[in-house]
């Protein structure tokens, strides 16, 4: 049981980054009513943009992050304006499969430019600063502290933004009832643009954080998409706090599930993705609306 605190912290770290991606997914689902399969790929793109500016060009941390986030936001905007928005009146089915294609496009672009090999941000000559807590029971690098802090600050910021700002209120109005929001004078197209800009920016930032912890491959986006989907379904479709909690839960379950040995049995870490998938199946079977989701009677996820 000595390693439990360490596992909890690791789970919290990976969970908070998944939560950031899941929130964007949930926001997009709120307005266009489809699961964006390309969303995890935006996070992957962010990780690679940052690699380019930070490692290849050698810029300092903050400017590289700023330009990465801006570029991701712009990519999200472009895909919305030229692909998703014109197709918004088509069936959910069409949007879904188009987003699969957009995801493949992003991934193959990165693969073409940056090659498929695995990369990391860490350089051999730069040892990471390690903090010890409770003796040696808990070891956290300063990077990890930064990840947790920035993820939570971002989540809080997003929460207040959605709750109190004018744009945030109109975004919530849109996901509640799009035509009614149009009637009261909300510029729907502009708001949807902003949703894509915002969620892609957050996803890009999450991508950087994830790549700091793990490594970069063009295939990571697919995996992130699935984890974010599971988080969204766990928390309840269309619920922003649900997406946050779902993301944290998935991270915790994955790390605690593979790290813990109970009675001599443990799950090998190569089967980490199995945990998320099993949780997904269980939820789909027994509680399809998730933890905080609305009941099926008042389900607004279908198009009118």
């Amino acid at each position, binding site marked *: 049981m000595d390693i439990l605190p360490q596992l909890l912290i690791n789970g919290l770290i990976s969970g908070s980054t998944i939560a950031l991606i899941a929130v964007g997914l949930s926001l997009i*689902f709120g307005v266009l009513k*489809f*699961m964006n*399969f390309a969303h995890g790929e935006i996070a992957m793109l962010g990780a690679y943009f940052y690699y380019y500016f930070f490692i290849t060009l050698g810029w300092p941390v903050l400017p590289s992050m700023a330009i990465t986030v801006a570029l991701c936001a712009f990519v999200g905007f472009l895909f919305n304006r*030229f*692909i998703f928005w*014109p*197709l918004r*009146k*088509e*069936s*959910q*089915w*069409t949007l*879904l*499969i*188009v987003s*699969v*294609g*957009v995801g*493949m*496009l992003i*991934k*193959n*672009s990165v*693969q*073409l430019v940056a*090659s*498929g090999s695995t990369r990391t941000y860490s350089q051999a000559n730069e040892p990471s600063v390690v903090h010890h807590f409770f003796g040696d029971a808990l070891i956290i690098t300063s990077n990890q502290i930064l990840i947790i802090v920035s993820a939570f600050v971002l989540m809080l910021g997003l929460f207040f933004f959605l709750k109190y700002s004018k744009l945030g209120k109109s975004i919530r109005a849109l996901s509640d009832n799009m035509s009614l929001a149009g009637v009261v004078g909300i510029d729907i197209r502009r708001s949807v643009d902003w949703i894509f800009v915002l969620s892609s920016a957050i996803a890009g930032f999450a991508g950087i954080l994830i790549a700091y912890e793990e490594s970069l491959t063009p*295939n990571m986006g*697919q*995996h992130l*998409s*699935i984890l974010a*989907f*599971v988080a969204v*379904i766990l928390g309840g479709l269309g619920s922003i706090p649900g997406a946050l909690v779902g993301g944290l839960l998935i991270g915790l379950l994955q790390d605690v599930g593979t790290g813990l040995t109970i009675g001599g049995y443990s799950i*090998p870490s*190569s*089967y980490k*993705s*199995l945990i*998320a*998938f099993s949780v*997904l*199946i269980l939820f*789909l*079977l027994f509680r*399809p609306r998730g933890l905080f989701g609305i009941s099926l009677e008042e389900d607004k*996820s279908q198009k009118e």
Partner: protein
Amino acid sequence: MNYFYHLATLMCLYLLLAQSMNMYLGFTGILALCHIAFYGIGAYASALLVMHGAPFELAFLAAGILPALLSILLGLTSIRLKADYLGIATLGFAQIVSSILQNWDSLTRGALGLAGIPKPEIFGVTFADKASFFYLTAGITAVLMFVMYRILKSPFGRVLETIRDDEVAAMSLGKNTVAYKLTAFGIGALVAGFAGSLFAHFITFIDPASFVINDLSLILVITVLGGLGTFRGPFLGVLAIMVFFEPLRFLPLPAEYLGPLRLWIYSLLFVLTLRFVPSGLGGLWKHRSRRGQQFTRY
């Protein structure tokens, strides 16, 4: 000449894969993204059985039946789900299959893959060279295509299309839509497994990397480019891809760029097709541009 036989065999395999995916994706409207997993299971099942001494005929049948059974198990838990949920659940399934292929070392030899898969031998005839293997593949493809054509044109096939267009209407006619969907899904997996078996014995080497989601993009682009929900769609899609994009292989570029470049072009084609001609090549000449009816039939 051998290259053309090689290419023609691959075309048959892609045709099988695209048409079997079309069966549930295009005709029935089941958004399942695990076709590549069925293909992989078929390939591994067939290769392992033959390498452990089973005759090819038996291995071929098993390669189809195993994915079909798995697809029904998967379908029982998830086929009632709405499109987004189903897409995710099946994508998760595909990931699990590839992670099992990669990690179950004692059976699949993990990332090393299976090498030296014997060429098929049917009733004492060995299909060892490219030409004879092509005739075998073409024969099997023709039979399977004919069967799928008859299925899709039968009353059964019409119910599938009704389910895609309006599931509630199909239910109100007393059709057990879940059973119909499961059957369509199962047939798709069956044919994909057959294709996997042929692929394994054709290339004689398989590894988990051949069955990752990446390769789904080629099948998807063939199906979508040709036209979802049309029988001629996959034919047109395979022809278009092979005639116009296979020559890309001969571009004077280093190999590490060529592969990704082709995939990039495929995915771009995929997005552009759905954005501007949702009914694909197959729907072009009778394209009715009524909104919301993008899968209008021929």
